[in-house]
């Protein structure tokens, strides 16, 4: 079966590092090298590198790119400055979430301005098809799926900055969070952005597939002094959970709209000039804003060690009020944490609920999201 899975350019490197490879969204990806907890803590306390080449990378060239994307994304694209990266959603006409994405506005070394959309691996094909279906009749924009001819590396943790600095000839500490630029690695273009999915400081690099192994080795050589280690999808999941970052297929799906998901910040109803924007799904989401949401995303913490996991029912006073969408033992907090949706909107923080953990009702307390915030 393995030979049918897609492999990132670093596949053999992962195997050589002792990774356990799993099928993730049709890619063979490292879930862990040693221990998820060790990789998690190394990201919180030092620095780790994740291969995130499975994420979809779709480039838009041509003067119409901004307008096309502005109509597709819940946040404004037309007012983006060069070097800006934005978290946004792509919704269907009913306001259901098709994907959560990052959109980059970049300029190539030769002065070509373009947009880059980074989408979830599991949604790449769906999003490419969705965009194709929305294609304007008179198009002066070109879309290229660059996923397989590039690699994407996430270097995350408090020592990420010091690790990567020697690889670049400019001061990368001057790059602000959610900024990116086209720079070079080994004389080839490389996109560096201060982004990540761990709740720590960190950077992501997008580079040519054929140079990703050498750059990885350079990162590990530079990071040795900071005890760099590789980290897999297992730690990526526990890290994003502590930071309450939603994961598509868990906290996000086509039946949920951005306001229910607690992602109102990722919806711009108006542009910078104060005019109403017209993006796909905006009418439905405006209606939800007027009518109010019917469910809401909450955070739960439990005592003991047993985690409330995806699909477990959440109870209040013996009545089912919702369901867990993600949950795990939190390596940082040392107790179980979970996110889920409930149909009670007025639950104060600290409300005592219960979760049905495989037939056993365990007490759970509603708590502030995110569970963990770096200081």
């Amino acid at each position: 079966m393995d030979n049918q899975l897609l492999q990132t350019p670093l596949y053999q490197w992962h195997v050589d590092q002792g990774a356990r490879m799993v099928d993730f969204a049709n890619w063979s990806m490292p879930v862990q090298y040693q221990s998820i907890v060790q990789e998690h803590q190394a990201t919180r306390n030092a620095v780790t590198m994740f291969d995130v080449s499975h994420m979809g990378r779709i480039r838009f060239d041509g003067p119409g790119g901004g307008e096309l994307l502005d109509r597709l994304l819940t946040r404004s694209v037309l007012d983006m400055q060069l070097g800006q990266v934005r978290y946004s959603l792509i919704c269907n006409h009913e306001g259901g979430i098709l994907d959560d994405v990052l959109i980059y506005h970049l300029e190539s070394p030769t002065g070509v301005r373009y947009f880059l959309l980074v989408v979830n691996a599991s949604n790449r094909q769906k999003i490419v098809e969705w965009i194709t279906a929305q294609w304007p009749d008179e198009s002066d924009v070109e879309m290229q799926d660059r996923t397989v001819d590039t690699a994407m590396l996430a270097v995350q943790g408090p020592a990420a900055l010091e690790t990567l600095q020697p690889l670049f000839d400019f001061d990368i500490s001057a790059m602000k969070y959610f900024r990116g630029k086209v720079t070079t690695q080994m004389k080839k273009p490389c996109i560096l952005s201060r982004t990540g999915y761990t709740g720590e400081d960190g950077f992501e690099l997008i580079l040519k597939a054929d140079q990703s192994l050498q750059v990885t080795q350079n990162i590990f050589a530079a990071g040795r002094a900071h005890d760099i280690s590789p980290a897999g999808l297992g730690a990526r999941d526990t890290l994003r959970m502590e930071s309450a970052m939603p994961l598509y297929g868990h906290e996000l799906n086509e039946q949920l709209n951005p306001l229910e998901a607690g992602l109102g910040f990722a919806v711009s109803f108006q542009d910078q000039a104060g005019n109403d924007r017209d993006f796909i799904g905006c009418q439905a989401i405006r209606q939800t804003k007027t009518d109010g949401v019917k469910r809401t995303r909450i955070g739960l913490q439990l005592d003991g060690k047993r985690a409330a996991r995806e699909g477990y029912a959440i109870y209040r006073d013996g009545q089912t009020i919702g369901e867990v969408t993600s949950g795990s033992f939190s390596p940082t907090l040392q107790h179980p944490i979970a996110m889920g949706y409930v149909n009670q909107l007025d639950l104060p923080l600290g409300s005592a609920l219960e979760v049905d953990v495989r037939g056993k009702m365990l007490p759970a307390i509603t708590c502030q999201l995110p569970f963990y915030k770096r200081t």
Partner: protein
Amino acid sequence: MNAEELMYCPTHEWVSTTEENGETVATVGISAFAVEQLTDLVYMELPSVGNQVAAGQEFGEVESVKAVSPMYSPVSGEVIAVNDGLADQLETLNDDPYTAGWIMKVKLSGALPDNLLDFAAYQKQCAESS
């Protein structure tokens, strides 16, 4: 206990038997391979003394950061002892899964099932699955 002298379930539990006062008593645990595959263990749900267990049926569960895995009994009978301290010292399973890491002792109600694997056959299964 010596790993090479134990019998194994395809589901990664080990079992050894002794004769005590004319009864056959089975000691049950989970294999080093299972512990390594699970990694990051956080919780174990143990059976209670007096429980009846049946070969191939779930008798408890082990939870890691990533997932929950059921443990299946290799044998049928009555649970006569449980390693109560284990749940609070799961690292024992990493250090010594075959002696200090025993999970339960079962007084057999019949013969050992015939689907148990010897060490060589179990090693082969592990090699093929990893």
